[in-house]
């Protein structure tokens, strides 16, 4: 066998094949997560169907261990590594995003524990797919090459398609999975067509090389405009930007609620990481294409998302549209990316800050919704009436998260919005100012529907006389504890999050 291959090898690689040098310390979070995945698969194979309790714990420990190794990478000063010819970069930005993905992955595992354990939901496979998807996100944070971005996107999306359809005998879950799958693959296919054109135009797939090749000339050729738009639109779908948001509400409503939390937070953050890599490294020199596109996407996304959220009666659907609107806020700094005379890293940091705070408050809100639904068995807003009387703790938690999402101090949300404003005003362009005005108007609209939920919980009497308190399982309590602490701390002491975010920079590094 080897003898037959040898002449071919000698032809393609004279002097023998040399593997690329790999820094395994910088790679350790991914390695640990992959090992966890393998262990979970093995444990799943060798346990009986009714005895899958250990898998949840194992998955959680593996994710935390991987998070520990993110710390090890920083401590051992391996946080400026460029591997595989610049295609895979481990820098502060990548590490912060990896920590975010792992933490939100852990919280999702926590809020899944009882939901998946109590329903007949194929526990073993569920956690395998969650781990695989988180692994894809870790790769996405480091990917600085079209091929690795594509692989990371598929690794994180394909498990998510299956997770959305997890309750496979439930027609709504089928619909959720089918819609997510069809829209997802279609967007990926269009994105790939754009990538193939980019490769044809530049002869390379490394983002830095692409930027160098397309930045020349005052007027971009039409084919380049098409390629950039196709690629960015592919990720516009992932972050549910209007007009590519149509899958989001249906998928969020139909999918199991912990999966919805995963899609709304981790998957969306991964989309933003890819968008940031592309816009700030790959297309930075072509602000004339990116800025108008992102301006339109951002303005449309926040306005349409908020206006439709106003008339939702299902709380998960409301969060879906609120998530669409929040994506619009996060797209805003991309609309001023690459303005001359400003440091693009200000925009990068504002999005990183927003993502960190958004993850905490949104995951927390979903945790409370899941806990309340254990009693009410419903996700309608009206079903939450009287929650302050029978579950004051949960109701206060949800109030904190909703206040934070609305951007009202002292909770984290205000600082997230503040950093977006900062980025928009630093750019000092008409596009930036108009988006800032739109953002203010939208925040007011959003506050209205967030506060409506609080009003229903506080002032409307409960439908039934059953005032027994809601029993909250310990895993959900831990999840809510983590998210409440992060949401409150980031609002009261924003220095914590700005400290992390200020070390993130994309421009000027990346091999």
């Amino acid at each position, binding site marked *: 066998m080897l003898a037959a291959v040898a002449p071919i090898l000698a032809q393609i690689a004279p002097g023998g094949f040399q593997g690329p040098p790999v820094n395994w310390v910088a790679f350790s979070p991914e390695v640990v997560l992959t090992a966890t995945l393998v262990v979970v698969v093995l444990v799943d194979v060798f346990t009986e169907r009714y005895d899958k309790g250990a898998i949840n714990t194992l998955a959680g420990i593996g994710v935390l261990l991987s998070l520990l190794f993110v710390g090890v990478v920083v401590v051992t000063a391996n946080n400026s590594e460029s591997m595989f010819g610049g295609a895979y970069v481990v820098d502060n930005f990548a590490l912060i995003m990896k920590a975010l993905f792992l933490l939100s992955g852990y919280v999702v595992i926590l809020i899944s524990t009882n939901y998946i354990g109590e329903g007949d939901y194929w526990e073993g496979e569920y956690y395998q797919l969650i781990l695989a998807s988180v692994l894809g996100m870790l790769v996405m944070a480091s990917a600085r090459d079209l*091929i690795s971005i594509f692989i990371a996107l*598929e690794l994180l999306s394909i498990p998510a*398609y299956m997770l959305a359809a997890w309750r496979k005998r439930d027609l709504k879950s*089928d619909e959720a999975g*089918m819609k997510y799958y069809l829209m997802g693959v279609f967007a990926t*296919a*269009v994105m790939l067509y754009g990538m193939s054109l980019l490769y044809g135009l530049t002869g*390379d797939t490394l983002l830095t090389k692409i930027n160098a090749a397309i930045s020349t000339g005052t007027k971009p050729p039409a084919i380049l405009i098409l390629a950039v738009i196709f690629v960015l639109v592919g990720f516009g779908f992932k972050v549910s930007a209007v007009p590519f948001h149509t899958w989001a509400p249906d998928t969020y409503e*139909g999918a199991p609620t912990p999966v919805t939390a995963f899609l709304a937070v981790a998957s969306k953050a991964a989309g933003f990481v890819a968008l940031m890599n592309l816009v700030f490294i790959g297309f930075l020199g072509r602000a004339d294409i990116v800025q108008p596109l992102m301006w339109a996407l951002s303005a449309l996304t926040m306005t349409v998302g908020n206006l439709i959220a106003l008339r939702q009666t299902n709380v998960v659907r409301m969060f879906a549209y609120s998530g669409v609107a929040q994506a619009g806020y996060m797209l805003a700094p991309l609309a001023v990316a690459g303005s001359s005379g400003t440091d693009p890293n200000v925009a990068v940091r504002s999005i990183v800050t927003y993502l960190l705070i958004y993850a905490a408050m949104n995951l927390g809100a979903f945790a409370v919704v899941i806990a309340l639904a254990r009693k009410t068995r419903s996700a309608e807003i009206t079903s939450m009436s009287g929650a302050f009387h029978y579950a004051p703790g949960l109701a206060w938690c949800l109030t904190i998260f909703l206040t934070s999402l609305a951007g009202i101090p002292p909770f984290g949300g205000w600082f997230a919005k503040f950093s977006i404003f900062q980025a928009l005003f630093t750019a000092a362009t008409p596009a930036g100012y108009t988006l800032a005005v739109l953002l203010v108007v939208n925040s007011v609209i959003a506050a209205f529907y967030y506060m409506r939920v609080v009003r229903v919980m506080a002032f409307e009497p409960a439908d039934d006389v059953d005032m027994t308190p809601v029993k909250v399982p310990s895993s959900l309590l831990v999840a809510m504890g983590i998210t409440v602490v992060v949401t409150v701390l980031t609002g009261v002491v924003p220095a914590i999050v700005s400290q992390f975010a200020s070390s993130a920079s994309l421009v000027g590094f990346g091999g």
Partner: protein
Amino acid sequence: MLINAYLLLAAVLFCIGVYGVLARRNGVLVLMSIELILNSVNINLVAFGAWWGAQQPCGAAQGCAATIGPVFALFVITVAAAEVGVGLALVLMLYRNFKSIDIDQVDSMKG
């Protein structure tokens, strides 16, 4: 080397695929249309690879412009297989629950 013909073929395939995704109601045919788009991407990548090979001959250096295209195409083919595997599973699930693979009837949630 002239690659117009290949690019035109890819563009036509891409358009047929997009039309198929938007207009077809049969789940399996939608999957086939997506495959058409992915294959148009592959044609593009391989054609551009050959074109770059004619522009900048590779020599002994690793990772030159001409090799990236075919390698990218291999990745696309592999991942497309995985993607369609999941897609067919979803269509099968749809058939079991709805006794049909018409994707237009899977539309109970609105608003």
